[in-house]
């Protein structure tokens, strides 16, 4: 029975991927190229060791972004502001981190803490607006996005950047001291017998990201708070009757979501750049929404979705050499998102109907069971 459930659960994403392949094949045919050759190239390029490492590295911030969005989704809230939250958080964390000196582990923890607080404050602002003034969080988080990005640009340009040596035109914050650096996992890989080519470093943030994912699972599925959160997402009115304070729940969820969002820029900050500049990756906030949707708001699904998107992005890079626009990966992403969402809905209805039928079967012969709606 459980195996069947799992298989059915996989049905939707598989269907989505197949549909995405079909649509992108059509797109490739549109420009007179061969889809089969394109996919073959992508697959071959994608499973090279350095590609895999790149995929995982790309997936880590996407994973975190997906988690941030998902915790909101689980409660029925839409935090579309992850983009602004992680950008401002990364800037401030980089700036503050470069101005203190702490022993290594504490230093990293401090930087993470700053990032989480910034993200939480931004998301909390949207939450407060919703609770006190009834402003829908979709619009407020989107507006705060633009505002946060504007503020980040301003702060970077005027206050928080260092004086660059001549010839260096990239505005950036001061370099983090060595105690604030997270080493890569290359040595770990070596000890496992894997030898990636030079320049291909697996982010040291990976274990932290996994820990966040585990914490997310435990919080949402194993604590009373998580139960309240899920209950509010399923039926806010019933949850309120059962004792959940809606205003508090909204605030707590937004704060949590923002805190996780703040971490999205940390892998890059601690593992690659060691400072904040405009070279940071953008768009992770919006892709995170897609990752959460495809991953159906549970940590394992989100992890797979993040890896999938990372893989698509990487393997598509080879397509440029064949004259196929690599934007096809973006189209695939878009199609996957929409079709996953639709497929999940269809599968859910089928499963639901089946369960109802099974329960009805069970009670046959035990008395009349007329069709009933709201019995409570």
């Amino acid at each position: 029975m459980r195996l069947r459930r799992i298989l059915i659960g996989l049905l939707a994403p598989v269907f989505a991927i197949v549909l995405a392949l079909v649509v992108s094949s059509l797109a490739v045919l549109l420009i007179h190229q061969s889809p089969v050759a394109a996919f073959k190239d992508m697959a071959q390029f994608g499973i090279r060791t350095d590609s895999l490492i790149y995929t995982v590295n790309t997936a880590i911030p996407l994973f975190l972004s997906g988690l941030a969005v998902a915790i909101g989704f689980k409660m029925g809230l839409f935090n579309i502001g992850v983009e602004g939250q992680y950008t401002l958080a990364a800037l401030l964390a980089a700036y503050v981190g470069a101005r203190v000196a702490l022993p290594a582990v504490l230093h990293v923890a401090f930087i993470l803490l700053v990032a989480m607080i910034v993200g939480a404050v931004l998301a909390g602002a949207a939450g407060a607006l919703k609770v006190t003034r009834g402003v829908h969080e979709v619009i407020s988080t989107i507006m705060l996005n633009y505002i946060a990005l504007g503020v980040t640009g301003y702060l970077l340009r005027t206050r928080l950047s260092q004086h660059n040596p001549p010839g260096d035109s990239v505005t950036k914050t001061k370099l983090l001291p060595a105690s604030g650096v997270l080493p890569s996992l290359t040595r770990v890989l070596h000890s496992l017998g894997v030898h990636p080519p030079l320049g291909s470093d697996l982010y040291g943030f990976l274990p932290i990201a996994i820990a966040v994912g585990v914490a997310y699972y435990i919080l949402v599925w194993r604590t009373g708070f998580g139960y309240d959160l899920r209950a509010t997402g399923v039926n806010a009115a019933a949850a309120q009757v059962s004792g959940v304070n809606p205003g508090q729940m909204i605030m707590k969820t937004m704060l949590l979501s923002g805190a996780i969002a703040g971490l999205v820029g940390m892998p890059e900050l601690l593992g690659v750049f060691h400072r904040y500049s405009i070279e940071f990756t953008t768009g992770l906030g919006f892709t995170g929404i897609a990752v959460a949707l495809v991953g159906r708001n549970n940590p394992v699904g989100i992890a797979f979705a993040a890896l999938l998107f990372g893989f698509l992005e990487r393997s598509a890079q080879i397509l440029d050499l064949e004259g196929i626009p690599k934007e096809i990966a973006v189209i695939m992403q878009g199609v996957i998102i929409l079709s996953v969402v639709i497929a999940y809905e269809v599968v859910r209805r089928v499963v639901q109907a089946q369960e109802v039928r099974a329960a009805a079967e069970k009670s046959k012969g035990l008395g009349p069971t007329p069709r009933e709606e709201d019995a409570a």
Partner: protein
Amino acid sequence: MLGHQDARPFARGPWIDKRGAHQRTKEVVEAFRVITPGVDVAAYALSGGNQQKLIVGREMAAKPQVLIAAQPTRGVDVGAQASVWEQIRQARVAGLGVLLISADLEELIGLSDALWVILRGKLVARLDPQKVTPEELGSYMTGARQEEIKA
């Protein structure tokens, strides 16, 4: 476990006790004769009557001192209705205070020790369920008949 998710047996401190929840659900299913293919089935899959039995069982199993039952058998099939009535009677025997709110005449007369009628927010009648007929009760409920109430 909705409504009781912060107490035993469903929770221990901040953590949800899955085994405790499982156990309690099994007990409720058995005691209240909820018909379901299994304890793991989602509640929406059950028929309305069985959902209601489950909910009544959930509330009673929490050993309350007062139970407020609002329309407890509306839309519920006959078998489940009889089952719920029986549970309410037994709880009353065991000393549970039950506030029954209903529009079902049979239910009101059959279950109550005392009967009060509220119409348009005002108390309009205090009746003895042993003596009142369904027609009388109905006419008070619709306002066709009125009586002086000394509060």
